[in-house]
Protein backbone atom coordinates (compact mmCIF):
# COMPACT_ATOMS: atom_id res chain seq x y z
CA UNK A 1 0.00 0.00 0.00
CA UNK A 2 2.99 2.29 0.52
CA UNK A 3 4.09 4.25 -2.51
CA UNK A 4 5.74 7.47 -3.49
CA UNK A 5 3.35 10.36 -3.75
CA UNK A 6 3.34 12.17 -7.09
CA UNK A 7 4.28 15.81 -6.78
CA UNK A 8 0.81 17.25 -7.46
CA UNK A 9 -0.65 15.10 -4.70
CA UNK A 10 2.11 16.10 -2.32
CA UNK A 11 1.49 19.72 -3.19
CA UNK A 12 -2.20 19.36 -2.56
CA UNK A 13 -1.57 17.67 0.77
CA UNK A 14 0.72 20.42 1.86
CA UNK A 15 -1.81 22.94 0.69
CA UNK A 16 -4.44 21.23 2.76
CA UNK A 17 -1.99 21.31 5.62
CA UNK A 18 -1.70 25.05 5.13
CA UNK A 19 -5.40 25.60 4.64
CA UNK A 20 -6.05 23.87 7.93
CA UNK A 21 -4.02 26.54 9.68
CA UNK A 22 -5.61 29.26 7.62
CA UNK A 23 -2.25 30.58 6.43
CA UNK A 24 -0.82 31.41 3.05
CA UNK A 25 1.16 28.96 0.96
CA UNK A 26 4.90 29.40 1.38
CA UNK A 27 4.98 30.30 5.06
CA UNK A 28 5.08 26.74 6.26
CA UNK A 29 7.77 26.90 8.99
CA UNK A 30 6.50 30.19 10.37
CA UNK A 31 2.93 28.98 10.24
CA UNK A 32 3.37 26.04 12.55
CA UNK A 33 4.93 28.11 15.27
CA UNK A 34 2.44 30.89 14.80
CA UNK A 35 -0.72 28.80 14.65
CA UNK A 36 -3.12 29.18 17.54
CA UNK A 37 -3.12 25.36 17.63
CA UNK A 38 0.22 25.63 19.48
CA UNK A 39 -1.40 27.31 22.50
CA UNK A 40 -0.29 25.60 25.69
CA UNK A 41 2.62 23.67 24.21
CA UNK A 42 5.22 25.99 25.75
CA UNK A 43 3.71 25.78 29.25
CA UNK A 44 6.13 24.15 31.69
CA UNK A 45 3.52 22.88 34.10
CA UNK A 46 -0.01 21.56 33.92
CA UNK A 47 -1.87 24.60 35.26
CA UNK A 48 -0.49 27.17 32.84
CA UNK A 49 -0.99 24.60 30.07
CA UNK A 50 -4.65 24.22 30.98
CA UNK A 51 -4.98 27.99 31.31
CA UNK A 52 -3.50 28.49 27.84
CA UNK A 53 -6.27 26.43 26.30
CA UNK A 54 -8.93 27.82 28.62
CA UNK A 55 -9.52 24.46 30.28
CA UNK A 56 -8.98 25.21 33.95
CA UNK A 57 -12.68 24.88 34.63
CA UNK A 58 -13.24 21.87 32.40
CA UNK A 59 -15.78 19.42 33.83
CA UNK A 60 -14.68 15.88 34.72
CA UNK A 61 -16.65 13.26 32.80
CA UNK A 62 -16.91 9.51 32.37
CA UNK A 63 -17.70 9.96 28.70
CA UNK A 64 -14.08 10.11 27.67
CA UNK A 65 -12.39 6.71 27.49
CA UNK A 66 -8.65 6.93 28.13
CA UNK A 67 -6.81 3.67 27.58
CA UNK A 68 -3.20 3.55 28.73
CA UNK A 69 -1.16 0.97 30.62
CA UNK A 70 -1.38 1.06 34.44
CA UNK A 71 2.34 0.46 34.45
CA UNK A 72 4.42 1.67 31.52
CA UNK A 73 7.19 -0.88 31.23
CA UNK A 74 8.99 1.49 28.86
CA UNK A 75 8.52 5.18 29.57
CA UNK A 76 9.62 6.15 26.04
CA UNK A 77 6.83 4.16 24.41
CA UNK A 78 3.44 4.46 26.05
CA UNK A 79 0.53 3.58 23.78
CA UNK A 80 -2.48 5.80 24.53
CA UNK A 81 -5.96 5.49 23.05
CA UNK A 82 -8.59 8.18 23.48
CA UNK A 83 -12.27 7.89 22.68
CA UNK A 84 -14.77 10.64 23.28
CA UNK A 85 -18.40 9.64 23.64
CA UNK A 86 -19.45 13.27 23.88
CA UNK A 87 -21.53 14.50 20.94
CA UNK A 88 -19.94 17.07 18.65
CA UNK A 89 -16.38 16.48 19.82
CA UNK A 90 -14.14 18.94 17.97
CA UNK A 91 -10.82 18.98 19.79
CA UNK A 92 -8.88 16.53 21.97
CA UNK A 93 -5.82 17.54 24.03
CA UNK A 94 -3.51 15.02 25.71
CA UNK A 95 -1.36 16.01 28.69
CA UNK A 96 1.28 13.99 30.52
CA UNK A 97 0.99 15.96 33.72
CA UNK A 98 4.63 15.70 34.86
CA UNK A 99 6.42 16.05 31.55
CA UNK A 100 8.67 19.13 31.26
CA UNK A 101 6.05 20.51 28.90
CA UNK A 102 2.89 18.64 29.83
CA UNK A 103 0.86 19.25 26.66
CA UNK A 104 1.78 16.38 24.36
CA UNK A 105 -0.76 16.55 21.57
CA UNK A 106 -3.75 18.42 20.26
CA UNK A 107 -6.10 16.80 17.75
CA UNK A 108 -8.60 18.93 15.85
CA UNK A 109 -11.32 16.68 14.49
CA UNK A 110 -12.95 17.86 11.30
CA UNK A 111 -16.18 16.51 9.80
CA UNK A 112 -15.80 12.85 8.86
CA UNK A 113 -13.49 11.92 11.72
CA UNK A 114 -14.61 9.53 14.45
CA UNK A 115 -13.69 10.80 17.93
CA UNK A 116 -11.10 8.05 18.47
CA UNK A 117 -7.36 8.57 18.22
CA UNK A 118 -4.33 6.63 19.39
CA UNK A 119 -0.76 7.84 19.73
CA UNK A 120 2.42 6.70 21.51
CA UNK A 121 4.15 9.08 23.88
CA UNK A 122 7.12 9.48 26.20
CA UNK A 123 6.55 9.98 29.90
CA UNK A 124 9.12 11.64 32.10
CA UNK A 125 7.94 9.92 35.28
CA UNK A 126 4.91 8.30 36.85
CA UNK A 127 2.06 10.72 36.33
CA UNK A 128 -1.55 11.21 35.49
CA UNK A 129 -2.41 11.39 31.83
CA UNK A 130 -5.12 13.96 31.27
CA UNK A 131 -7.40 14.29 28.28
CA UNK A 132 -9.33 17.49 27.68
CA UNK A 133 -12.12 17.38 25.13
CA UNK A 134 -14.01 20.22 23.56
CA UNK A 135 -17.50 19.04 22.65
CA UNK A 136 -20.49 21.18 21.78
CA UNK A 137 -18.44 24.22 22.74
CA UNK A 138 -17.89 22.91 26.31
CA UNK A 139 -14.68 21.59 27.85
CA UNK A 140 -14.51 18.26 29.65
CA UNK A 141 -11.68 16.14 31.00
CA UNK A 142 -10.72 12.75 32.32
CA UNK A 143 -7.47 11.46 33.74
CA UNK A 144 -5.80 8.24 34.81
CA UNK A 145 -2.49 7.38 36.34
CA UNK A 146 0.27 5.57 34.52
CA UNK A 147 3.21 4.43 36.58
CA UNK A 148 6.62 4.36 35.00
CA UNK A 149 9.07 1.68 36.12
CA UNK A 150 12.78 1.50 35.77
CA UNK A 151 14.67 -1.72 35.53
CA UNK A 152 15.35 -3.51 32.34
CA UNK A 153 15.64 -7.22 32.73
CA UNK A 154 12.74 -8.11 30.45
CA UNK A 155 13.52 -10.62 27.78
Amino acid at each position, binding site marked *: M*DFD*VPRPVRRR*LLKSLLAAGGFAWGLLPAL*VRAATGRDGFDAKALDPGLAAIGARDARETGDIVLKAPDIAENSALVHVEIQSKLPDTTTIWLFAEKNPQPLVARFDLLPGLEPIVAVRIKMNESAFLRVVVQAGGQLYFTRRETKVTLGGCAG
Partner: protein
Amino acid sequence: MADPIKMRIVLDGEVAVVKVLMPHPMETGLRKDPLTDDFVPMHFIQHVVATHNGKTVLDAQWSRSVSKNPFLEFRVRGVKAGDKIGIAWEDNHGETNSLESVVK
Protein backbone atom coordinates in the same frame (compact mmCIF):
# COMPACT_ATOMS: atom_id res chain seq x y z
CA MET B 1 15.16 12.62 3.86
CA ALA B 2 13.11 10.67 6.32
CA ASP B 3 12.07 7.10 5.59
CA PRO B 4 8.68 6.83 3.88
CA ILE B 5 5.53 7.01 5.99
CA LYS B 6 3.78 3.67 6.42
CA MET B 7 0.01 3.50 6.41
CA ARG B 8 -2.38 0.60 6.94
CA ILE B 9 -6.07 1.04 6.26
CA VAL B 10 -8.76 -1.45 7.20
CA LEU B 11 -12.25 -0.71 5.96
CA ASP B 12 -14.88 -1.69 8.52
CA GLY B 13 -18.20 -0.98 6.80
CA GLU B 14 -18.00 2.70 5.97
CA VAL B 15 -15.37 3.46 8.58
CA ALA B 16 -11.70 3.39 7.63
CA VAL B 17 -9.44 2.43 10.53
CA VAL B 18 -6.15 4.11 9.64
CA LYS B 19 -2.87 3.29 11.37
CA VAL B 20 0.19 5.31 10.47
CA LEU B 21 3.87 4.98 11.34
CA MET B 22 5.99 8.04 10.60
CA PRO B 23 9.71 7.26 10.77
CA HIS B 24 11.31 10.20 12.60
CA PRO B 25 13.94 10.49 15.39
CA MET B 26 11.69 12.67 17.61
CA GLU B 27 14.62 14.09 19.55
CA THR B 28 13.55 15.84 22.74
CA GLY B 29 16.71 17.95 23.03
CA LEU B 30 17.28 16.31 26.43
CA ARG B 31 19.19 13.28 25.15
CA LYS B 32 22.96 13.29 25.08
CA ASP B 33 24.95 11.82 22.25
CA PRO B 34 26.88 9.01 24.00
CA LEU B 35 29.98 9.69 21.89
CA THR B 36 30.24 13.48 22.16
CA ASP B 37 28.35 14.02 25.44
CA ASP B 38 26.58 16.91 23.70
CA PHE B 39 22.82 17.27 23.75
CA VAL B 40 21.21 16.10 20.52
CA PRO B 41 19.24 19.09 19.20
CA MET B 42 15.49 19.04 19.50
CA HIS B 43 13.97 17.60 16.32
CA PHE B 44 10.35 16.52 16.28
CA ILE B 45 7.22 16.37 14.17
CA GLN B 46 4.94 19.12 15.36
CA HIS B 47 2.13 19.24 12.82
CA VAL B 48 0.28 16.34 11.23
CA VAL B 49 -2.66 16.54 8.85
CA ALA B 50 -4.82 13.67 7.62
CA THR B 51 -7.00 13.98 4.55
CA HIS B 52 -9.82 12.00 2.98
CA ASN B 53 -10.02 12.54 -0.80
CA GLY B 54 -8.00 15.71 -0.32
CA LYS B 55 -10.24 17.14 2.40
CA THR B 56 -8.67 17.62 5.84
CA VAL B 57 -10.26 15.39 8.49
CA LEU B 58 -7.66 15.60 11.26
CA ASP B 59 -5.27 18.38 12.17
CA ALA B 60 -2.85 17.50 14.96
CA GLN B 61 -0.24 19.52 16.81
CA TRP B 62 2.41 17.54 18.68
CA SER B 63 5.13 18.18 21.21
CA ARG B 64 8.54 16.51 21.46
CA SER B 65 6.95 14.03 23.89
CA VAL B 66 5.53 11.90 21.09
CA SER B 67 7.60 8.69 20.80
CA LYS B 68 10.26 8.02 18.19
CA ASN B 69 8.83 6.81 14.86
CA PRO B 70 5.42 8.19 15.81
CA PHE B 71 2.31 6.06 15.59
CA LEU B 72 -1.08 7.58 14.91
CA GLU B 73 -4.43 5.84 14.63
CA PHE B 74 -7.66 7.50 13.59
CA ARG B 75 -10.97 6.54 12.04
CA VAL B 76 -12.67 8.19 9.08
CA ARG B 77 -16.40 7.85 8.35
CA GLY B 78 -18.01 7.64 4.93
CA VAL B 79 -15.09 5.89 3.24
CA LYS B 80 -15.37 3.44 0.37
CA ALA B 81 -12.90 1.39 -1.67
CA GLY B 82 -11.02 3.61 -4.09
CA ASP B 83 -11.05 6.63 -1.77
CA LYS B 84 -7.76 8.20 -0.84
CA ILE B 85 -6.41 8.77 2.65
CA GLY B 86 -3.49 11.14 2.97
CA ILE B 87 -1.02 12.05 5.70
CA ALA B 88 1.37 14.98 5.78
CA TRP B 89 3.72 16.02 8.56
CA GLU B 90 6.03 18.91 9.23
CA ASP B 91 8.75 19.00 11.89
CA ASN B 92 10.38 21.83 13.80
CA HIS B 93 13.18 22.04 11.22
CA GLY B 94 10.62 22.69 8.49
CA GLU B 95 11.13 19.26 6.95
CA THR B 96 8.00 17.63 5.59
CA ASN B 97 6.83 14.27 4.35
CA SER B 98 3.55 12.96 3.03
CA LEU B 99 1.84 9.87 1.71
CA GLU B 100 -1.49 9.18 0.08
CA SER B 101 -2.91 5.65 -0.08
CA VAL B 102 -5.88 4.24 -1.93
CA VAL B 103 -8.41 2.40 0.24
CA LYS B 104 -8.82 -1.21 -0.86
